[in-house]
């Protein structure tokens, strides 16, 4: 038994220095070395009734895997994490642990919680890669090679975190699973949205290869609702159930004058050009990106932080986060805010853009801003920003990125007769099972909730897999 480490603080994780990393796309956080992981794992008290597990949407066996790390059994730790989490190397990097598992940690009552996220990442990175079965484009025969005791086939729409989790769980249960992806690369927001420096694409590829090794088949370049109708998958298509995890893909704009000027991007466009299409390697890669010296990113979530930090890395000299509420209300993960600030991103809190002005060629050149102050709490419980009298000024900008959220992509709902949805576009699905009003059709993740987090989407995928199993067992 290793000796318990009673340090009140987390073992720090090595990182690239801010001035160096703000100009490259390599991963910022470098991960624990073996001795650092063992030292941090020794901080865990191994609670009999671990409150951290209840704080995890997929109920990772936290004390068990941490005990294995503390004892030096890293591959055992990896297996333990993977038994309840289909994408552990990803969660260890992108989950808001401070709001989930770590917020319940007993050690956190006095000092810092155990660094569960960092340890999850450490364990997952020690997982030996399995041989992949291979995936491919649309135009080939579908032959999902389930490990399957069960002959029933299940289709999953979308290969983001929710779809992949559901597919992995179903494959483990023995179903033959086919995942249909609209883009040319699987991973959804993990590949088009979250940047390389926060979540290396090799990690995503490895996690997907692990699922393929379980027998999950992934078909890219299929837009369900266009290439194949959802109803065509059921019945004649040979699938007994469908899980819709098509994400929240439709970008919101502020509805202020000038948002269609050149140089104004939705965060989706800006991040997709950079992450999925590798525009930062232009002209070696063919997808262009135009970024000026001064970039204003509108919004305060993780996506806004990602966009701001990407802007620095593609050469912007000055990057603002323009956010209409205050610092305490920022929805982003603490680590992202901290990293953005270290790298030189300038935060303009209590500031709302009211108008964008362009030059004679239609390129944005300035942003009119309105200062705000906090009023009464709104429906979300956060204090509502209200206009501060006076307080109008102009910011010179050459690029604007609008990162104020996304709504569910309407494609599936609009092409699937009778599938019930909310007025704002979310598919109506049961919280516990993901069941929609259509028998055999389940849904979850951002397509149901609107834009949320990777781990919540994964939790929905996991629950839906169990519900689909129960449905097909009938």
């Amino acid at each position, binding site marked *: 038994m290793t000796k318990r480490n009673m340090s009140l603080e987390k073992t720090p994780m090595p990182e690239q220095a801010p001035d160096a990393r703000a100009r490259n796309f390599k991963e910022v956080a470098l991960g624990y070395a073996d001795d650092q992981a063992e030292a941090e794992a020794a901080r865990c008290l191994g609670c009999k009734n671990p409150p951290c597990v209840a704080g995890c949407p997929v109920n990772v066996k936290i004390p068990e895997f941490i005990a294995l790390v503390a004892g030096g059994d890293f591959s055992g730790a990896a297996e333990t994490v993977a038994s309840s989490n289909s994408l552990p190397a990803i969660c260890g990097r992108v989950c808001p642990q401070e709001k989930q598992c770590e917020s319940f940690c007993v050690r956190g009552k006095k000092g810092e919680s155990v660094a569960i996220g960092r340890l999850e990442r450490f364990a997952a990175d020690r997982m030996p890669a399995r041989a992949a079965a291979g995936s491919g484009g649309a135009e080939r025969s579908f032959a999902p090679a389930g490990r399957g005791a069960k002959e029933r086939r299940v289709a999953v729409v979308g290969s983001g975190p929710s779809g992949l989790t559901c597919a992995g769980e179903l494959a483990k249960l023995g179903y033959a699973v086919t995942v249909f992806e*609209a883009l040319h690369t699987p991973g959804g927001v993990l590949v088009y949205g979250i940047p390389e420096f926060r979540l290396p694409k090799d990690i995503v590829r490895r996690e997907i290869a692990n699922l393929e090794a379980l027998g999950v088949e992934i078909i890219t370049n299929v837009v369900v609702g*266009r290439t194949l109708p959802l109803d065509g998958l059921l019945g004649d298509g040979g699938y007994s159930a469908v899980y819709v995890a098509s994400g929240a*893909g439709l970008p919101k704009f502020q509805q202020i004058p000038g948002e*269609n000027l050149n140089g104004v991007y939705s965060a989706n466009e800006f991040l997709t050009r950079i992450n999925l299409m590798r525009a930062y390697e232009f002209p070696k890669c063919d997808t262009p990106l135009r970024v000026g010296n001064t970039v204003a990113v509108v919004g305060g979530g993780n996506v806004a932080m990602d966009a701001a930090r990407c802007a620095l890395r593609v050469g912007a000299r000055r990057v603002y986060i323009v956010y209409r509420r205050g610092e305490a209300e920022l929805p982003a993960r603490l680590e992202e805010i901290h990293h953005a600030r270290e790298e030189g991103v300038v935060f303009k809190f209590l500031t709302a853009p009211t108008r964008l002005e362009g030059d004679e060629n239609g390129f944005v050149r300035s942003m009119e801003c309105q200062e705000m102050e906090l009023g009464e709490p709104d429906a979300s419980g956060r204090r509502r920003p209200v206009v501060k009298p006076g307080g109008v000024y102009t910011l010179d900008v050459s690029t604007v990125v609008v990162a104020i959220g996304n709504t569910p992509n309407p494609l599936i709902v609009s092409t699937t007769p009778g599938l019930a949805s909310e007025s704002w576009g979310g598919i109506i699905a049961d919280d516990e099972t993901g069941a929609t009003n259509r028998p055999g059709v389940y849904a979850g993740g951002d397509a149901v909730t609107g834009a949320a987090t990777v781990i919540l989407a994964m939790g929905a995928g996991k629950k839906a897999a169990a519900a689909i199993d129960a449905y097909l067992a009938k």
Partner: protein
Amino acid sequence: MYRIIKKKVLNPATVMLEFDAPLIARRALPGQFVILRVDESGERVPFTIADSDSRTGAVSVIFQIAGYSTQKLAALSQGESVLDLVGPLGRASELDGYDSAAVIGGGLGIAIAYPQARALYERGAKTDVIVGFRTQELTILREELSAVSSELTIMTDDGSNGNKGFVTTALERKLEAGEKYDVVVAIGPLPMMKAVCDLTRGYGIRTIVSMNSVMIDGTGMCGCCRVTVDGERKFACVDGPDFDGHLIDFEEAAYRARMFAEEERVSRETHVCNITGGVRS
């Protein structure tokens, strides 16, 4: 991988490629498009579906060699493949219920207008087709268009076919002569579509245009293809590409089309240098 089953050079700057893509062919309708990526470093480029055959699984596109991506695509031969092809995307054109129509194509728009003309003609509408080329040598799809039009008018900017003028010249002539149309479908460069809309507005004829905006995903995700229609923000990829031309903000569409003009120039020149060792052709 998506194999090229047929390649045809229509004129020195225009190429037709037919792909083996049975899933797309089974669902494709006039007005829809595909997005294609040539290779691993390639960009995602939208192309309107020029023709498709659900029996053979063939889907064809016609494009003009304009930038680096289309150069790369045009360099492929029959039997070779592109890495990615996805579709059919966008809403299909709404062509039902018209008794008479004029289909106007300019430049490459002619290839895009062809499936619309055919659909209208096959639905029994009197279908006058007016197409324009810079010069007679660049004429494409003459026989195909002729087979699906009640009357085919070919205009040339330089008059080399004996019919000098723009497509609007021919359309105006017909309208002034008292020709009545339920609908005008105009597809081509933005200035041409705008000119047609300006003309038909005075006659109160419903006019459909097809917006060929810059896109990435083609499924509503990036918002790059946004256009203002009747004061509202629309995405050409999912709300279009067809829109009521009288409601389009063409001025905005024109500057948005030039968003990456400078980068496209850099890409073209860099790669020309790589290919020819510094000599530009």
